[in-house]
């Protein structure tokens, strides 16, 4: 029987992130050893990334009073490593996660909206709980559903047929995918993250974002936080397709993070406010 890795490698068109973005995620995954020079060098290799970083550094929100930010080095000093990572990853994943994913009934832009909402929610929850790094939580939240793109690439039209099958009102999407395909989008997403050589903590966050394990050696704070971030995004209806809200919230994760209803509601409010910065309100004609 083929392993998940073999199935992935056999795909002609694997979802891919720009090399510079992957390098940034890997370097910042070991944040204590990251040097500004290393980050600067990686960003300089990608002209689209350079302009995205400079544009944000000169935006009304971040521009220094003293004048214009002209170089990546200045931007790094003004914004800090984590903010640069957030800009880079959000900017570079847009074209990939912005695609329609028919197998989950997601129109163009909807997977990305869900990714951003989950990323911001995870970042907010990390700041609220102080249990993990908010920058790492942002990236985990952003990439958590990358496996949906792989499912689409692997199964094509079969995916929507399978996802439309459940007729009872209370099916669990993860169990359903396992039954139909032998694995689910979080497992195959984690396999892709391994192939991309993402840091171990991020691979775990993607793998367990729908079912954090009790064993904290396997899971951990980042996993719990990205899971709760996912629930916030689902409650807000961001990135919900034909799978809807058919995912289970782990009460154990909420307990471990000491996350109460007021915290959850606050996370929804903050996510909604910050989402606007990424998503200027426009009318679609």
């Amino acid at each position: 029987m083929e392993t998940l890795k073999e199935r992935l490698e056999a795909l002609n068109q694997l979802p891919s992130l720009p090399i510079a973005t992957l390098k940034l995620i890997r370097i910042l995954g070991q944040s204590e050893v990251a040097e500004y020079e290393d980050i600067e060098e990686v960003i300089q290799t990608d002209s689209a990334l350079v302009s995205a970083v400079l544009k944000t550094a000169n935006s009304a929100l971040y521009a220094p009073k003293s004048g214009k930010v002209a170089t990546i080095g200045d931007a790094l000093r003004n914004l800090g490593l984590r903010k640069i990572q957030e800009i880079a990853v959000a900017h570079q994943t847009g074209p990939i996660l912005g695609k329609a994913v028919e197998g989950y009934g997601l129109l163009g832009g909807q997977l990305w909206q869900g990714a951003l909402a989950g990323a911001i929610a995870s970042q907010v929850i990390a700041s609220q709980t102080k249990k993990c790094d908010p920058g790492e939580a942002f990236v985990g939240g952003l990439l958590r559903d990358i496996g949906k793109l792989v499912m689409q690439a692997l199964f094509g039209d079969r995916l929507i047929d399978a996802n439309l099958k459940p007729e009872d009102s209370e099916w669990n999407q993860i169990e359903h995918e396992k039954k139909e395909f032998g694995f689910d989008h979080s497992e195959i997403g984690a396999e892709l993250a391994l192939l991309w050589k993402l840091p171990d903590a991020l691979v775990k966050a993607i793998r367990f974002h729908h079912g954090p394990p009790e064993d904290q050696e396997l899971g951990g704070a980042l996993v719990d936080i990205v899971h709760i971030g996912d629930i916030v995004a689902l409650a807000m209806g961001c990135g919900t397709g034909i799978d809807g809200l058919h995912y289970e919230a782990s009460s154990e994760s909420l307990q471990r993070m000491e996350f109460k209803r007021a915290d959850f509601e606050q996370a929804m409010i903050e996510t909604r406010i910050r989402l606007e910065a990424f998503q200027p309100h426009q009318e679609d004609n």
Partner: protein
Amino acid sequence: MTPQPQTLSSEKKLIVGVGDMKVSTDPTMPIYTYALGSCIGITIYDPNVKIGGMLHFMLPQPGKENKRTDLNPFMFGSTGIPSLFKHCYSLGAVKERLIVCAAGGAEVMTHGKAFAIGDRNRTIMRKIFWKNNIILAAEETGGNDARTMVLDLETGEVRLKIRGKESVLWKP
């Protein structure tokens, strides 16, 4: 930065985001909201003057702990619902003629402790309607499915799209 959901149709429409509201006097442009999760979408429509609006609220009310005073009122049922009615009245809609519909309020599944956001959203909506003597013409709330809601300002028809299938929630 994020594109709005793309649709296959080139039809002109107004899009209501999460924690957002739109009212209109233009019957040629339907009002849409995509993917209501635990949020609730409320439509109101006066058929005599073809004025209507839609609110997509996210939470019942700002929490007591919330000290921010700059919060968008459309995020909450407690402030968004009165605002939706007042805006439509200011455009010429009349309370007695209004057709009011609601959808959304779904929940994430759980075997343990739940925050029941959808349920609490439904409760505040009903409480406000009861206090103000407003009767819902049609409602589809609860469950675990996400819903897209559309108000046609020409006819007043309210449609839902759930798991790719369209259905009529209310029609004249």
